[in-house]
């Protein structure tokens, strides 16, 4: 399965097993979504379970909160994460706080899916990685899968979860494990073992990281598209790095991170989002606090630059295997 097919499959199973799961957003009903992640849901489950909404992100999330509080489990799509901002007040001031401010009287068990990240020549409005805008907010969980198997298991967990979950889908990974070499032929998911997705219902607990490559020289903390770019960089510079795919940023699998950095004594953090106040800053702080005496070198960060996401200069902005390789070498020399 591709990641798109896996996400679609998760929707199917969630809607089959729980009548309270409803799916809606812009173009998600009849058309099945601009990335086709909800294709077939409306014809299978009917228009009251999966439907199109007006182009209004605040309305999508605001209505979903009311529905969630009234016993449904909405799983809504924001067409691109870049379009999320009109809904941000609803997410931050409302969804994230219903349980807290009502002392459990009202809750908002909803999932908000949105494609994130670059690599598709989407310019500044189709390429952003706003995960830190969510991880900063108390009351939200933030999840980001990197392959079809995880996408299905994590999405089913997110829908089952009794708290609001932001589900970020790296859009460059929808059709294959992109490793950052944009000038080479595209690798399809069919060539990757994690595209082998079981047809049955399964979940992956939120807050568990996955070690994608075991190693002893340096720990790479990353997520989303950058998992494959980091793996390519590691292979190309022949450093025995341990690459950790965080999968879930909140809750965070701190135990796996600590265990790895205590073993390797070195750490490189990689993400697509801008550098300053990015989630990488949180990772660096946690690693220095918990692994200070194990560290042999300063922690390096490879991220997007602190600029809007450019169009023609996409591959200058996008953290390349080369940039990650340089950071790995620098850390090893430190």
């Amino acid at each position, binding site marked *: 399965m591709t990641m798109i097919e896996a996400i679609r499959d998760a929707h199917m199973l969630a809607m089959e097993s729980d009548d309270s799961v*409803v799916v809606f957003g812009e173009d998600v009903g009849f058309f099945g979504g601009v990335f086709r992640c909800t294709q077939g849901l409306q014809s299978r489950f009917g228009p*009251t*379970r999966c439907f199109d*909404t*007006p182009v*209004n992100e*605040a*309305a999508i999330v*605001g*209505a*979903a*909160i*009311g*529905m*969630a*509080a*009234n*016993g*449904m489990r909405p799983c809504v799509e924001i067409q691109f994460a870049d379009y999320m901002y*009109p809904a941000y*007040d*609803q997410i931050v*001031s*409302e969804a994230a706080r*219903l*349980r*807290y*401010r*009502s*002392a*459990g*009287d*009202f*809750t908002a068990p909803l999932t908000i899916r949105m494609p994130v990240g670059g690599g598709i020549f989407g310019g500044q409005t189709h390429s952003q990685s706003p995960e830190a805008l969510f991880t900063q907010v*108390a*009351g939200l*969980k933030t999840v980001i899968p990197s392959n079809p198997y995880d996408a299905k298991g994590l999405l089913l967990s997110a829908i089952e*979860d*009794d*708290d609001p979950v932001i589900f970020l889908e790296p859009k460059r990974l929808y059709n294959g494990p992109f490793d950052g070499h944009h000038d080479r032929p595209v690798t399809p998911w069919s060539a990757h073992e994690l595209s082998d997705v079981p047809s049955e219902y399964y979940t992956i607990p939120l*807050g568990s990281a996955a070690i994608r490559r075991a190693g002893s020289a340096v720990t790479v903390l990353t997520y989303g598209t950058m998992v494959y770019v980091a793996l390519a960089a590691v292979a190309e510079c022949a450093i025995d790095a341990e690459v950790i795919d965080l999968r879930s940023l*909140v*809750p*965070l699998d*701190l135990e796996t991170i600590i265990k790895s950095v205590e073993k390797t004594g070195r750490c490189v953090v990689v993400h697509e989002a801008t550098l300053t106040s990015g989630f990488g800053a949180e990772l660096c702080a946690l690693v220095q606090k918990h692994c200070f005496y194990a560290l042999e070198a300063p922690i390096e960060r490879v991220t997007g630059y602190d600029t809007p996401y450019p169009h023609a200069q996409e591959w200058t902005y996008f953290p390349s295997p080369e940039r990650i390789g340089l950071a790995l070498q620098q850390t090893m020399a430190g």
Partner: protein
Amino acid sequence: MGVFLKMLTNEAEVATPLTLAVPASTCRPGDTPDFSDMVISEPGVVRRPEVTESAQDMHELATELIRVLDDKGNAVGPWAPVIDTAMLVKGLTSMMVTREFDRRMFLAQRQAKTSFFMQSTGEEAISTGFRFAMRDDDMNFPTYRQQSLLIAGGYPLELMMSQIYSNSHDPLRGRQLPGLYSSKDTGFFTLSGNVATQFLQAVGWAMASAIKGSDSVTAAWIGDGSSAESDFFSAMLMASSFQAPVILNLINNQWAISTSQSVVRGQAATFAVRGHGFGLPSLRVDGNDFLAVYAVASWAVERARRNLGPTFIEWVTYRVGAHSSSDDPSAYRPKSEAAAWPLGDPIERLKRHLIASGAWTEDQHADLEGKVKEQVRLAQAVAEEWGTLKSGPGPSPRDIFEDVYADVPEHLQRQRREAGL
């Protein structure tokens, strides 16, 4: 090219410079209060359509003012509801409890027993009358000036006060600003404090009721000021597109802190006409007329419950008190404005009606006033035994780490340990 440039130059010479029309609030300190441009229909003259009538056929209801009680206290016209005396006395009592509750809690704030309070003086009829037209399993998404919804719904005053005092019995465990209650059992959605956000959630709640095939309905509430937010328009759109079983209520109390409703209304004749662009039945109602409130609320609730779709209602009233305990309205509006308000006081008007209909006497009223004062005084005494913000038992500091998520996650457990809690 030369000709073109010349033409441009000539145009510029004759054009009048643009000017910006900065909207101004209508009446400021020193001005004489003036409500003469407000459309006030005579009581009883506005038509009452069938609930099945199309929105297009009742456009006039958005620019008139539905009223039932005349100046003598008689209930007149097609909107006069069938309502028994016991219910009217109950309504009167509930409004009087709200007013006394507000008076005592405002004083309690001045006595530093809490940090903040918002009165609803003058607006009691809207939430009281509306609540009486709803069922217990219906849901309200209230604004912060609707304590009457809880009081009319039978929620204990002691618990409201405990929330205001953030004491040991505060159902919200000290987390919310005073007055931002929550009670699912009383059909009162957790209050946000951000304005307008919940107008939209109400539509979602109503959509869920429809998806589930239940027969409960939803009331969304917003103010004249907060109706400027995008969420207002988004909610109107969603309600219209999905024909949600929701009543969209706009309480026009004339003032958004210091900004008058005319600034937000812009060039629209009334707030109610905003509903026409969304194809919604849109009504404008005297919010200080308990009978009109009850009648129109019942009409709109019936529409929603019969799956006939949403209704938009502008309730016209006046914010008699300050915006909040932190506000002094004498800085921005004439002190005499409340007395000049043409729609009177809702409690006085219902009392006059009861007396005019022979069901009530001044003596009975005085007796009720005494009982109401005693009821609220006793509730306050009980609540203060449970503590106030400044003294007595309060919620545990440990409470701040709970209910952020369904279970306390590892990172919050760690922070709680580090805080020594």
